[in-house]
């Protein structure tokens, strides 16, 4: 049986006034990109800190490659690279000096160290400015340097906390390709947190959604979508007044609805069907101009999971569902 890259079991972490992690339990198999998603303050960074052994859990435990970070923190950290909440680069030092410091910390020999630093800085387009103090660089460049630092010693596990924050779209796409390659070709396990849900859906084989320290859902993004992504219908036309929509909300095929710019977005109940809704509207004199059936986007699924008021997805005025096949 394969040892999971990460195992979290009943993990609790209390701070003086708040429970940051509340009995979290999940496994991450090796060699995949795992997305850990949640709103700000959900507990994502706390989990990473516990896994790296820089924060002790209050209860429960965690294992990284079968090792408890509390007792084998040094071994765990030797096998992990990390880009954390802040990029952590030394602004008074140059790019080479930054990487050299960590390469020495990882006990890389001089030949390997120099070659690796050159490769990574060239790959990230930073080689030409390698001797400048990093403090003079843009945020995106510092972020690239921090990513280079995280993979410098070729670790089998990489923690990346918002890696594409501050990167331009081209650099972000390039990084996504690199991460996929690391996972698929080199078997590196990537623990990724991001607020970019499209990125998470594209990259991650598994995701965990966390809010207020509790794991709300866990699985493949497609599985999360299909489990929660009840279809929605956009209906555009004239005669869709408020009184009519109030009546529409009460009929059996409709789970919920909300107006959007061109008409109404209806979330279909599990046993509901669209023709019945259209027929109901036509019978009440509505001039239908367009009916478009969509599936919920991953973003909608995420918002449904983390919304505190229980508002169902697909019916928010500013989060129209994505088109099918996106």
């Amino acid at each position, binding site marked *: 049986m394969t040892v999971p890259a990460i195992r979290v079991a009943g993990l609790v972490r209390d701070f003086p006034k708040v429970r940051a992690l509340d009995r979290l339990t999940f496994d991450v198999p090796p060699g995949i990109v795992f997305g850990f998603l949640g709103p700000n303050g959900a507990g994502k960074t706390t989990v990473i*800190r516990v896994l*790296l*052994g*820089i*924060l*002790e859990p209050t209860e429960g435990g965690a294992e990284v490659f079968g090792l408890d970070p*509390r007792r084998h*923190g*040094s071994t765990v*950290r*030797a096998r*992990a690279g*990390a880009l*954390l*909440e*802040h*990029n*952590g*680069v*030394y*602004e*008074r*030092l140059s790019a080479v*000096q930054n990487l050299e*410091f*960590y390469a*020495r*910390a*990882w*006990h890389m020999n001089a030949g390997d160290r120099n070659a690796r630093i050159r490769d990574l800085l060239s790959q990230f387009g930073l080689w030409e400015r390698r001797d400048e*103090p990093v403090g003079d660089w843009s945020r995106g460049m510092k972020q690239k340097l*921090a990513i280079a*630092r995280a993979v410098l010693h070729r670790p089998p596990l990489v*923690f990346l906390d918002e890696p594409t924050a501050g990167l331009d779209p081209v650099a972000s796409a390039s990084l996504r390709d690199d991460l996929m390659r690391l996972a698929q070709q080199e078997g590196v396990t990537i623990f990724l947190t991001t607020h970019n849900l499209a990125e998470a859906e594209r990259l991650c084989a598994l995701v965990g959604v966390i809010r207020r320290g509790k794991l709300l859902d866990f699985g493949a993004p497609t599985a999360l979508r299909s489990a929660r992504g009840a279809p929605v219908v956009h209906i555009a036309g004239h005669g869709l007044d408020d009184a009519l929509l109030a009546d529409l909300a009460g009929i059996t095929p409709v789970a919920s609805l909300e107006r959007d710019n061109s008409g109404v977005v209806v979330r279909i109940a599990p046993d509901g069907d669209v023709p019945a809704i259209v027929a109901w509207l036509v019978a009440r004199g509505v001039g239908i101009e367009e009916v478009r059936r969509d599936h919920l986007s991953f973003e909608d699924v995420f918002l449904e999971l983390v919304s505190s008021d229980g508002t169902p997805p697909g019916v928010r005025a500013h989060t129209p569902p994505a088109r099918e096949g996106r």
Partner: protein
Amino acid sequence: MIQDVLTVARKEWLEIIDQLLRFKRGGWSILLVVLFLGVISPLQMGTTWLSSPLMFFYWPLLTSSMTSTLIADSIAGERERHTLETLLASRLPDAAIISGKILAAVLYGFTFAALNLAIGWTVVNVRHYAGELLWIPLPRVASLFALIVAGSFFIAGLGVFVSLRAATVRQAQQTFGVIILVLMMTPVLFVQLTSTDFQVRVLARVGTMGLEALSFRIAAAIGGIAVLLNLFAIQRFRRGRLSLD
């Protein structure tokens, strides 16, 4: 372990050098100190600069002050600049991180003192050269450096505790400044509380002992406390217990 300590100390030194080389951002201030202590003071004092008992007071004080500025920044600075968490996420052992920082701070103070002494010695010899070089007696140099090293280690050990608890560098420097002031005032207050008879006996004892011997003994006492302080600091520095934010 030693390799890790040197790795951390090397990084600290690279940061110091960068700061010193940034002339417009405060690097000039160090030149001002060098000018005063290494050039003006020896020129004013002449050959007495080589034998003045005052050197047992101001050199250790100066060195400790240089060490204190760096050590206050050690953990609080990493925390303030958001580099601490990444450092702790590396494989570097806790003891190596803190020992490397202590070593860098002590070496900084020591190097600064040695450099200024060398400049001062050169200035005195250039100004008062009369056919042969003038030297500071070896026992005096040895006892002075013993005091400097012990004092620097003591300040470094103490400073680590302050830096560990401070949220910002400014907070660490302010707290540390108050502690150093209290430490300096305590012997003065103690002397004032003793009887004149006691003071006369102590001075007589010091007189017979000689400044060098007294300096060695004080260095040994401070050094002993410094070793305990530093060991305690290394023991206290545990990543799992640190406040990262």
